[in-house]
């Protein structure tokens, strides 16, 4: 299969499906290697970008999705309805950030960090499809582990979890210092 054909198929598939489509799924459908899909999709994505198109192709972890360019938001908003915009409360956002940076994480661990019961918040996030169950911890009671969803990546414009600042010991240390500085210097809240 020629590159041009793969590009054509990937473009049509991403348009039709609307949602994010896994790379390996496309590779199987087209009977080509995953690298061929990645190369074709990236090429398409670059063309869209450099030609200033109204649509874009973005990659999330192991999938691609077609979406609109930010440039035309002001026109789009007059025609298309923005799907249910979930206004996240501080509690939800706090909880979400813990899940995002500590995943996979149990409700008990979240609770320990926040100092309050987080059951309701986690359930709400699951309802909003930003967080999902990702397995069970190999510990007494086999507690449920939670992680973020692909919808989370989309909603927060993050391409992959590695796009989030990682929590290496060095960074934690840096943060501590920063916190110290902030605490002593901050004039007003």
């Amino acid at each position: 299969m020629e590159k041009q054909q793969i590009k054509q198929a990937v473009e049509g598939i991403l348009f039709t499906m609307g949602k994010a489509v896994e790379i390996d799924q496309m590779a199987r459908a087209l009977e080509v290697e995953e690298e061929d899909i990645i190369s074709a999709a990236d090429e398409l994505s670059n063309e869209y970008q450099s030609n200033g198109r109204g649509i874009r192709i973005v990659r999330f972890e192991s999938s691609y999705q077609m979406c609109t360019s930010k440039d035309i938001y002001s026109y789009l908003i007059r025609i298309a309805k923005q799907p249910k915009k979930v206004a996240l409360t501080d509690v939800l956002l706090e909880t979400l950030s813990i899940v995002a940076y500590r995943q996979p994480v149990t409700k008990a661990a979240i609770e320990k960090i926040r100092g309050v019961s987080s059951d309701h918040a986690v359930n709400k996030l699951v309802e909003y499809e930003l967080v999902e169950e990702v397995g069970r911890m190999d510990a007494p009671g086999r507690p449920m582990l939670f992680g973020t969803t692909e919808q989370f990546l989309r909603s927060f414009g993050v391409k992959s979890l590695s796009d989030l600042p990682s929590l290496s010991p060095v960074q934690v240390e840096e943060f501590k210092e920063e916190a110290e500085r902030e605490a002593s210097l901050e004039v007003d809240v």
Partner: protein
Amino acid sequence: MEEKLKIKLPVFEGPLDLLLHLIDKNKVNIYDIPIALITDQYMAYLDEMKKADLNIMSEFLVMASTLLAVKAKMLLPRKQVSDTEGEEELDPRAELVQQLLEYKMYKCFAEKLRENQNMAEEIFYKEPTIPDAVAAYEVPVHPEELVKDITLEKLNLIFQDVLKRQKNRLDPIRSRFGSIKKEEVSLEEKTRNLLHFAAEHRRFSFRSILESAKTKTEVIVTFLAVLELMKTGQISAKQEETFGEIEIVSRVAA
């Protein structure tokens, strides 16, 4: 002065949130929390809150007791290092500070996420639009694929299993009854009707009441009803000669 009571308390997401607020407000270093002062302020807030919302109190109270415990430890004279050979004594606040820092870090991330969310909102996606030709397509099933790892031996075992289960299920006596059908005519109903008929007609032939029966079952049920009423003494039957007409005499008043 009374109006002061109505002042809305700032909302905190939890005890840690409140503690961070107090630390910020007092402009103190997170590593050097003036625990007595903060504890007093924390308790004062709790006191106010008690009037506002009892439901969320419990978690704040846990922190209050932690604060009091730390405060108590701070007030106690410090143990001298001499008897514990160089082991550095931990600041009673250390664990709390650690928790506060971690919490603060996630609050920081939460803010970053919110900014991200606002930006990501300007991108639109699309619902799937599957062309009719694609939607109408049915994927063929290949029998080979279906059967795959099933062997004839396995099929044999399954069949034996089915037979075994059937044997267990069947009650050898009842299973010989054949099908069970709902009664077309209930004996109770027939008896009631017959009694009613007998009350209106003093004498009538057995044949005449059978003539109206449509099915074999109804004939049998009618016969049973007659026997039933004879048993209870509400009718009597007599026959002049063998194979002769059976006459039924009613004993109930009209």
